[in-house]
């Protein structure tokens, strides 16, 4: 015990373990836990039937399906294509690479409402892309598909930025070794590279997914917000607030919070499992 304490003290660059831990807890408490527990406390003033009615009305259920479904789909697409983007940025040198690299961060910096307005302009039936999709009867703007597009847009940087450093650490010698041992390209990818990337990929996926769940600004512009069809859960929370129904709004928020936290916890466990499996 004494040994570990001195060890910690000796290795710590920041002022003392106790102080640092105390600060970390206080900081998390003020910024995260107190505001979130306020949501739970507000909900606690409701009776159980009132809570149940607020969080399971047909419109709210439809919005869960859309929000969680579109977020999941967007995060999965980002996991695949984000990996490709990260791979290209790390492995290949081409003119304008720096610019492409900087472009990846744009969805981070842009006010999401701007993204929403821009995407809607492009994908509505009169927009530059939407115009070409319209003859095939594919509508993006003002449909659930539009929600998916917006969520994919805002989620992309999370996957790319978590994978990039891992890919940079991944030396080509590994692939060469695999090749000399007679592995095909596909085998090298599935047996050697992919397992090493899995934990980072899961992290990126989880971050993109979590970000999509909470997204409001860009989605309300492109969704069309039709009840039962293209309403996201955050919009219903705003709707409740617009009626000064603070408890109803926090009730839905609490449900979202619990579901997202459980999902993120699950992904975290998966990540740990993946890391252990590769003997990390």
């Amino acid at each position, binding site marked *: 015990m004494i040994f570990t304490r001195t060890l910690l003290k000796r290795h710590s660059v920041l002022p003392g373990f106790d102080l640092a831990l105390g600060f970390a807890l206080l900081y998390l408490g003020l910024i995260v836990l107190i505001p979130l527990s306020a949501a739970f406390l507000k909900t606690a003033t409701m009776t159980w039937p009132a809570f149940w009615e*607020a969080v399971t009305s047909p419109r709210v259920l439809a919005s869960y399906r859309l929000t969680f479904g579109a977020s999941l789909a967007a995060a999965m697409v980002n996991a695949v294509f984000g990996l490709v983007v990260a791979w290209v940025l790390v492995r290949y040198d081409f003119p304008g690479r720096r610019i492409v690299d900087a472009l990846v961060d744009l969805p981070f910096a842009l006010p999401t409402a701007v993204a929403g*307005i821009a995407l809607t*302009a492009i994908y509505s039936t*009169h927009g530059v892309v939407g115009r070409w999709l319209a003859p095939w009867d594919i509508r993006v703007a003002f449909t659930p598909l539009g929600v998916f597009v917006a969520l994919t847009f805002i989620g992309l940087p999370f996957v790319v930025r978590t994978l990039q450093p891992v890919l940079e650490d991944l030396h080509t010698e590994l692939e060469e070794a695999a090749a000399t041992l007679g592995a095909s390209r596909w085998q090298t990818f599935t047996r050697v590279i992919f397992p090493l990337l899995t934990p980072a990929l899961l992290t990126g996926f989880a971050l993109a997914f979590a970000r999509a769940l909470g997204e409001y600004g860009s989605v*309300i512009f492109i969704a069309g917000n039709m*009840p*039962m069809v293209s309403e996201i859960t955050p919009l219903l929370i705003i709707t*409740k607030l617009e009626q000064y129904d603070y408890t109803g709004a926090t009730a839905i928020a609490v449900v979202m919070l619990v579901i997202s936290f459980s999902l993120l916890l699950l992904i975290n466990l998966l990540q740990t499992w993946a890391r252990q499996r590769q003997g990390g």
Partner: protein
Amino acid sequence: MIGRFLRLGLLTALAVAGAAASARDITLLNVSYDPTREFYQAYNAAFAKYWKGKSGDTVVVRGSHGGSGKQARSVIDGLEADVVTLALAYDIDEIAQRGKLLAPDWQKRLPHNSAPYTSTIVFLVRKGNPKGIKDWDDLVKPSVQVITPNPKTSGGARWNYLAAWGYAQKKYGSEQRAQEFVARLFGNVPVLDSGARGSTTTFVERGIGDVLIAWENEALLALKELGPAKFDIVVPSISIVAEPPVAVVDKVVDKRGTRQVAQAYLEYLYSPEGQDIAGRNYYRPTDPRVAAKYAGQFPKLELFTIDQAFGGWTRAQKTHFADGGVFDRIYTRR
């Protein structure tokens, strides 16, 4: 360097304090809704001039604009508004009831239900009116796409909905028929934007829909900004009087000692000059003499008030827009 900034800051602070001691500097905060931005900019300047001449005090009015409901919630949550000028009486009612910041009978304190200017609900259609839209009945035809914001999130949209309901009730004579009419109308709505400006963008910029249900002042402004070459305004036979109300927030003005000037600020809205600025910004003046001057701008139509048709905002809100209300039933029944 830092020392110099500090000294400069201190000097400025002293200068400001000194000025306040001799001739009073007063600031007012007017918490308003979105489309009044241009109107209050002009009005604030006029009022400052009037007040300077009357009392010698310099008054600076700051304005905060946003969705009406969101603005009301900010005031309830502690934004220190001396006056509120919102889109619906319901929002100020909530400030009175939830925030306990002003008396529940606030709407009786100023003339015309505390609404110094009014507007109404009209249609904006594409140039030449290709779908031949003339009245509310044309909006429920199967081939017509209607653009309106979501009444659950937009105060302005609630006026649109109630205007349609009031028309149907008058014409077809029963609540049941009115509900069917409104349900058919919303069946023609392809996009429910969360606010009025969003709907205008959808209709004007994206080119979606055949008709936009809009406040008359917004429609006139859109026509002026975008040029009458692209759109026409169609005035229905019957519509609602949209009354955006104003009120002094008692708790705040008593705390800040600004009651006198805040009261004067709202009363001046009823003066010929205030009314004229309203008219110039496409709001219908309530003063008949000023209204006569702008008669050419505002076509005549049969108008009903929310009190006549729905028994006031609180009842209308509860019946139509609360959770499980008529609007929800229209959508969940499909």
